[in-house]
């Protein structure tokens, strides 16, 4: 059984998508041969698409951007669809799983990203296994020491179980959406104080600086004759 673990976060350094893949890895069947991929702003090579098409399973971990799939990963998915059309091996057996994390509290805000993956599977002739969406993803970095399945990671334990259950049984199941076991108000407060305002301070900015409203830059607008005019 060949499984590709694909990290679709474009960030440099530690990523929440990487955190999810790390927690999934020890739960995968022991006999599985696991390869890892990182999809960043740079495109994959042709032979890497062919490698992916030869996998039994793809696990895509990625952040939610504008209620959907980030553009660099979307580009990779469209390239992959193109490779399925040009390759003569029929990839019916590829099963696809997704682990999506988002910044807002509610994990079910990932539901359209799951639908996009499902529609992509249909276009590629892949089988959609299952997916989960987990909210408040930026918290993962600060709870690395907490065992999965307890405290704020209790629900993550359930989400991973859901995914692994479908990987092991081979059966497709409906997606699962969840968020950490702590109050939403606490996330709102801690993201403001510990995350945004603290980062601002590191950059020598005050909280009110984060609310700046830059004005319209000098750009050139097209005129009907095709010429551009300064504003």
């Amino acid at each position, binding site marked *: 059984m060949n499984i590709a673990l694909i990290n679709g*976060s*474009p*960030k*440099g350094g530690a990523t929440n998508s990487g955190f999810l893949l790390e927690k999934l890895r020890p739960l995968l069947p022991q006999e599985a041969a696991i390869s890892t991929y990182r999809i*960043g*702003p740079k495109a994959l090579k042709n032979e890497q698409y062919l490698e992916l098409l030869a996998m039994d399973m793809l696990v895509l971990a990625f*952040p939610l*951007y*504008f*209620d*959907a*799939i*980030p*553009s*660099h990963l*979307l*580009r990779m*998915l*469209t390239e992959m669809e193109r490779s399925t059309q040009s390759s003569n091996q029929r990839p019916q057996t590829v099963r696809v799983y997704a682990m999506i994390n988002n910044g*807002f*509290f*509610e994990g079910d*805000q990932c539901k*359209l990203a799951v*639908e*996009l*993956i*499902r*529609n*992509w599977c*249909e*276009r590629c002739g892949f089988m959609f296994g299952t997916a989960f969406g987990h909210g408040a993803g930026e918290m993962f970095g600060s709870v690395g020491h907490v065992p999965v399945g307890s405290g704020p990671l209790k629900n993550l334990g359930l989400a991973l179980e859901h995914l692994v259950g479908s990987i092991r049984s081979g059966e497709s199941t409906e997606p699962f959406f969840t968020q950490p076991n702590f109050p*939403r108000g606490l*996330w*709102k407060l801690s*993201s*403001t104080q510990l*995350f*945004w305002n603290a*980062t*601002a301070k590191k*950059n020598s*900015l005050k909280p009110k*600086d*984060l*609310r*700046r*409203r*830059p*004005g*319209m*830059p000098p*750009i050139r*607008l*097209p*005129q*009907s004759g*095709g010429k551009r005019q300064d504003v």
Partner: protein
Amino acid sequence: MKMIVHDLENAGELPWLTAFGSGQDVIGIDNAVIRHCTGCFGCWTRTPGTCVLKDEYRHLGARLAACDEMVLISRCTYGGYSPFVCNVLNRMLPYVLPYFRMLKGQMHHQLRYEQTVKFNVYFYGEDLTANERQTAQELVQANSLNLGAKGFEVSFYDNIRQLKEVLS
């Protein structure tokens, strides 16, 4: 003013598009090369309101704030935008604030600007499935809620010829 983002190739050879975009802020796939968002949040915490990537798309937040309507013309891709239109949208993160607010029982962004836009999305594609249409419809609704839009419209066309008839 409208911001018009489209993924139509050889746009210069489409007189109807030139007329539609006259005097508007038009962003097309043939314009300058665009970099993908790298998820660094610099547009929120380093240079608030402006993207830190040094290309022609750094000021999309302020440019959108100068408009009252955002028009997206996109090939419908798995029930979402095409990679180019999605890329432009991703680079619009500085338009909103990092801070949260509650809307319809869910967390969303606080707005950076007082101005709001109307969202108008034209999807095209020959063989869209019912699921893709459904996803696309819901995606535009979700995006307009998140960006604090004052309204949204979504329509579907089989091809660019049909689109031209509507926009000419």
